[in-house]
């Protein structure tokens, strides 16, 4: 038996934990649809009302400018495109992930994005008379090929180097735990038929593998990892512990 999701786009599934919390907290009309009993399980009514097609709510730009974010969105969309097999990096909100990560773990890459996105735009202007996100897909693809082949001047650390960086971050943003702002609606994990984090996996689970139905849970849907867990380290035997 194969994963029913294999060839279908994933079901609409608002899974961003921050959004769920917000819905609960704000007592929005749809909030009744959020199941409180089991973290990570959201009943259908809310899914339908918010749906995959509605614009993703509550995305701040933490580091990128709006113009930069537009270019980045388009790059992500080229790298892992949405197609008949299902949604891609854009829908998974890889660009949102990257924007957030540039304020934290990837802050050293901030300058690389600033300089290289501008360089890509300038090349696009020069070749096609419009910014990257405004040219047709085939032209975008040609520009990314040029980026990969080290042919876009003005990138940091280099044209090829920026390609590798943005590819890496787009993958991270598509396939990471949704806690980080990407892999929205578990689009990335469903794409790979990864059935999700299971704190306990039986032999039967293993044998089913990709055919298991995906549980669509973030690691942080488990209380163990989100609140101070009972301290099981015995005694912490020391008089001078911090």
């Amino acid at each position: 038996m194969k994963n029913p999701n294999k060839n279908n786009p994933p079901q609409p599934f608002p899974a961003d934990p921050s959004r769920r919390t917000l819905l609960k907290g704000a007592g929005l009309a749809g909030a009744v649809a959020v199941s409180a009993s089991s973290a990570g399980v959201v009943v259908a009514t809310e899914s339908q009302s918010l749906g995959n097609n509605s614009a993703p709510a509550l995305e701040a730009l933490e580091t990128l400018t709006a113009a930069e974010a537009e270019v980045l969105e388009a790059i992500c969309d080229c790298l892992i495109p949405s197609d008949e097999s299902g949604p891609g990096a854009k829908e998974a909100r890889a660009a949102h992930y990257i924007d957030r990560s540039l304020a934290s773990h990837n802050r050293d890459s901030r300058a690389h994005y600033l300089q290289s996105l501008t360089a890509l735009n300038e090349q696009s202007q020069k070749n096609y008379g419009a910014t990257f996100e405004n040219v047709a897909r085939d032209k975008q693809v040609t520009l990314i090929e040029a980026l990969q082949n080290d042919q876009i001047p003005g990138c940091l650390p280099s044209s090829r180097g920026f390609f590798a960086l943005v590819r890496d971050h787009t993958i991270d943003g598509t396939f990471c735990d949704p806690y980080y702002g990407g892999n929205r609606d578990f689009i990335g994990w469903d794409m790979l038929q990864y059935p999700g984090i299971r704190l306990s996996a039986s032999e039967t689970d293993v044998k089913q593998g990709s055919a298991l139905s995906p549980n669509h849970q973030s690691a942080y849907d488990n209380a163990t990892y989100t609140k101070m867990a009972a301290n099981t380290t015995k005694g912490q035997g020391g008089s001078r512990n911090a």
Partner: protein
Amino acid sequence: MPRSLPETDVVIVGMGAAGGVAALPLTNAGLKVVGLEAGGWLNPRDFAPDELRNNDRNWPQTIQKAASEAPTVRANPSETAVQGGHPMMNAVGGTSMHYWAQSWRLNPWDFKVVSSTLARYGRGRIPEDSTVEDWPISYEDLEPFYDKVEYTVGVSGRAGNVQGVINSAGNIFEGQRRREYPMQPLRSSPFTDLMSSAAAKMDWHPFQGPAAITTEVYDGRPPCQYHGFCNKGGCHIQAKSSTAFSTIPKAIDTGNLDIVTFARVTEIRTDVSGKVTGVEYLKGNEIFFQPAQVVLIASYAYENVRLLLLSKSSAFPNGLANNSDQVGKHYMSHHQGSPVAALFPEDLHNWYGLPAQGVALDDWADDNFDHSGLEFIGGANLWVHTDRKPIGAAKMDTFGEAPSWGKDWKAFIARNADRSNTSYIQKTTLPYLNNYLDLDPSVKDSIGLPVTRITARYRENELRIADFAQDKMEEWYRAAGATHVLRFGLGNAMGATTHAYGGTRMGDSPDTNVADRWGFCHEAPNLGILGASLMGTSGSRNPTLTVQALAWRTAEHLVSNWRSRTA
């Protein structure tokens, strides 16, 4: 002036895999032990099953002291060394928190590389510029301590040789052991079954590897649940037998162990006669002096060497225990690189696997096969395991079958996410002249002390093993039905590694060894060394169980020779 604290019997610098084991026999014998640990305690909240955090961002190590003192690396003495990463953990339990937990004994041959090679193949087979020596002890000397650690820490596996009785479900090439493992091995999986039967068809001898992971309730800890986030992740249910969950709590229970966390040792002090008197450490903004009758350093190879070289005195102007210029010498970074990857036509069912759940082959390791027609000594342990995670899957090589992005790439990874596998091949690595550790002349850590500098590269013997092992690995994958096989480069410079050996080698001759056969310094008899920095050969499998067996042995030696060691 440092604040002087009351004297204690023993100070252990570093409460990791080695220090955490040594503490138990010492405190059981009634000695008062102070454990100085640069990191703090971790708890289950630290062990999230989060691939991005653990594996891409290397959470366990990025916030650590170790990160600021990552060694610099160069292949040759003529080059300027460049700082790389540091793979180790700072925490109570040390790297046994987030290691893979493969828990191997060395092969008897590893202890006697020189004499065995001379006897079987002649002098010419030992590389000319290698400084390899036989260990001062044999496998049989260490066997009782392997056994103690396996039972106390909690190791699962299947014995291949119990008192001469061979069991082909275990490793038939292993040295004789006194009894079976305390727990059954981790379960097999569809993938390990596939690989095992392929190997068996070629008359090779596959077996499930040993792991410091519980497979039943052991010592009050539950069995492994196979969630599979061991690689650079701690275990939230304590199924991984880290010293923080096994020996350290027991040592604390004796009432004789006092652990000081966030204590960063910067110097080992000696008196004018050269006797070690204690250690200086930094905690917060304050400097303390902890006097002790005996000091044991267990801060991992790079830091063990650095602490000795930083501790200069009138008795030891070139660094502690370094009057024969042996500190930092005989260094080896285990050749763990040059893997082989394979693509299969079917799903491998590896989404819920762990790095220690796998199949090993020792047919091509050590001296388990005839090297007469070959131009190297030693060999490789071939290891395939079941760990698979989504980001890693998406970053897999496309085996020439797809571009690296776009629609076709997307289709490729969607189809093959659970169909590729990368082997882990550990190879005998020898010590050489000009492969060594010293202090970097310009790069400093966050408190202004020079970091360790690695000068080392693999030589012909290692590269020939790598090439040979890749042939065997390729054969194995193909026999199991792989459609594509990829071999990676053979290696050159030895970067900072999770398996660092030598630098304070153990041996009977004080001219070529820092430590004696018990792990105490020839030049400073109340200074003991714990860790793989003692080891004179690498073996072709992970070091930690050997490190722990040696640590236990050193601790027992100290207990029974307390008077002479502290005289």
